[in-house]
């Protein structure tokens, strides 16, 4: 056994040596002009995502979906004749690893831009590095307000509606629908939970009757849900990730407690929740109110869903079609829109200007994108959903608002339909 092992080590050392010797050559160094990551035939885009580890659940399907959409675009001629090469690095949601892989993408692989980097603690750590190296940091995958700092981080743009905007919309709905009911809040003990609560209380126009927090390292919310039951809460908002939404619903059922649940879109995808809850899911999820801003995966009549399902079948190995795939492809669609708008002479300054000019109206989102010179946040609104029979469906109008004290108002514009070939046109 030991001899076999020794031989194996020597063999491995030799292979590694062989593989690392051509280092630095990388995928695409200089290329045409002097824009990093751009050649006449290719655009190299990078990202960091948790693909393995405890945080991978709920996220690991996003990047492959984006990649599938890029492959679809590439198969149909690419963007201005260039194919998009999407390099995905696993950071296991560890900020120290994010540092390593983003530097590898920028310094070694010389990517043109970072797209859809996922996570607040992970991405916060690389903001300064990306700024120093003037790398466009497009459509960060998190609802933190940190991405909207155009003065400090001119190259960084958000994508998700921020947690405060969402909280305000949900809070306003609770105030008008269940006036006078005792309302409580359970949130993750980080910026997600905090911003969500701020917005929710703004929407309610009053502080919640009871608030509790949880940490991901302790998968038991018995004490928190028990406190809500004891306090007599009738409406409970959950600022939770999917696993903890499932845990909260399950725990409430376990102790015979049946409030009206209102859930942040972060943790409200019925497909994901059903995966955790199993057979009990339809009963537990019945009547849960949540919100979203992209087409829903179960809405088979929606042309966007038809398009994304087709791409998923052709380029994504027909993975189980859930809202993460919709999310990944919607982000990818927006990036292609931005690349089209930036024109044939693609530069880093050019794409930032194109995004700031905004006007991305033909996309799958229901709410408006708010990009401008002074606003780098993403979607500015949400539409409410309700789960019945294990499936979420939209109801009522789409609302938009800001993260400050602006009013929550209806957004009347109807969602667009995708272009015939499923690829945004060059402007």
């Amino acid at each position, binding site marked *: *056994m*030991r001899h076999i*092992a020794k031989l194996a080590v020597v063999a491995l050392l030799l292979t590694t040596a062989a593989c690392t010797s051509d280092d630095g050559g990388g995928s695409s160094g200089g290329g045409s002009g002097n824009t990093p990551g751009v050649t006449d035939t290719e655009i190299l885009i990078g990202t960091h995502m948790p*693909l*393995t*580890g*405890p945080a*991978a*659940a*709920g996220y*690991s*399907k996003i990047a492959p979906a984006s990649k599938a959409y890029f492959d679809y675009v590439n198969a149909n001629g690419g963007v201005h004749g260039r194919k998009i090469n999407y390099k995905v690095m696993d950071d296991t949601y560890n900020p120290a690893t994010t540092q390593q892989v983003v530097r590898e993408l920028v310094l070694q692989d010389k990517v043109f831009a970072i797209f859809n980097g996922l996570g607040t603690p992970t991405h916060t750590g690389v903001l300064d590095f990306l700024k120093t190296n003037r790398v466009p940091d497009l459509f960060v995958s998190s609802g933190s307000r940190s991405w909207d700092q155009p003065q400090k981080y001119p190259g960084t743009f958000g994508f998700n509606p921020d947690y405060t905007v969402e909280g305000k919309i949900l809070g306003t709905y609770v105030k008008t629908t269940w006036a006078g009911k005792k309302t409580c809040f359970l949130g993750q*003990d980080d910026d997600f939970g905090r911003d969500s609560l701020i917005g929710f209380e703004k929407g309610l126009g009053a502080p919640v009757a009871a608030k*509790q*927090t*949880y*940490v991901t*390292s*302790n*998968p*038991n919310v*018995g*004490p*928190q849900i*028990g*406190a809500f*039951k*004891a306090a007599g809460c009738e409406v409970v908002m959950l600022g939770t990730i*999917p*696993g*903890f939404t*499932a*845990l909260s619903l*399950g725990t409430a*059922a*376990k*102790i*015979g*407690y049946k409030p009206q649940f209102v859930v942040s879109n972060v943790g409200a995808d019925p497909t*994901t929740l*059903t*995966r*955790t*809850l*199993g*057979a009990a899911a339809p009963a537990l999820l019945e009547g849960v109110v949540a919100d979203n801003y992209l087409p829903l995966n179960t809405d088979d009549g929606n042309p966007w869903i038809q398009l994304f399902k087709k791409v998923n079948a052709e380029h994504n190995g027909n993975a189980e079609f859930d809202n993460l795939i919709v999310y990944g492809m919607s982000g990818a669609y927006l990036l292609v829109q931005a690349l089209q708008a930036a024109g044939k002479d693609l530069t880093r300054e050019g794409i930032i200007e194109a995004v700031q000019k905004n006007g991305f109206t033909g996309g799958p989102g229901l709410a408006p994108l708010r990009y401008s010179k002074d606003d780098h946040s993403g979607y500015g609104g949400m539409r409410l959903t309700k789960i019945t029979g294990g499936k979420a469906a939209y109801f009522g109008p789409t609302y938009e608002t800001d993260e400050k004290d602006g009013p929550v108002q209806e957004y009347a514009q109807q969602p667009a339909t995708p272009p015939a070939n499923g690829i945004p046109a060059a402007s």
Partner: protein
Amino acid sequence: MDRFIFLTFDGLSRGAVYAAFALSLVLIWRAARIVNFAQGAMAVATAYAGYSVATATGSYWLGFAVALVGGLLLGAGVERVVMRFVDHSSPLNGVVVALGLVLVIQAVLGMIYGNEFRPAGAPFSRDAFVVGGVALLSRFDLWVFAAVIAVVALLVLLFTRTAVGLRMRAAAFAPDVSRLLGVNVGGMLTLGWALAAAVGSLAGMLVIPTELGLHPNAMDIVFVSAFTAAVVGGLDSAIGAVVGGVIVGLLLSYVSGYLGATVAPIAVLVLLLVVLLGRPGGLFGSVKARAA
């Protein structure tokens, strides 16, 4: 007072699952003098196998049996194929190999089943009996208690009343002498690993339905809590594992309930400090303090 009663029962049902897993750590420690860091990952692997069978056949109990038998086989396999060849001049070598195993097992599970949660059903209702408005225990909690008590009883019997159990302890404590006395030391080690892994699998089947679901990393956090429980109780003692598990479960529940979930890990650290400074070998341990 209602709050206190509720938190107590919540803590007891959490504590029971920690105790179940802590028992498997105690077993492997007694049989092989090693803290098996791969125990959690091995338990998850067999739980995946068990739930695959349960889903395919529609029978939870068939899947349950597959998980336990899978645990026996996996434990024996890991000992025969890997652990046997570890150089034991430094005990850390075994720890590093176990950590390597964790990575391999989690990666292979991720490849086969994906890194998403999968449902893990429970064989009994998880709805708690409500007495006077306070939710107490569910049928599933009672099943966990029964399983833990059964395992403790079997372990105590095995180690104190049977020849095999004595041989296992002898082989672990004094391998050379045992060998001279005719004990099949290698065989005893394999048996110890197999039994410990089976108890680990049982614990996995008890824990996973109460948490977020099946996931390659599903037992990571449980491992930390259960290891803490085993250390608090004393790694040589099955009773200690149960007491330790209940203490950790109650502490986490009280602290989360009264002070906030964020503070819980700090409370666990304080618990360890208090217990270990008083009794460096755990509450039920016989190990003396390093003279200081």
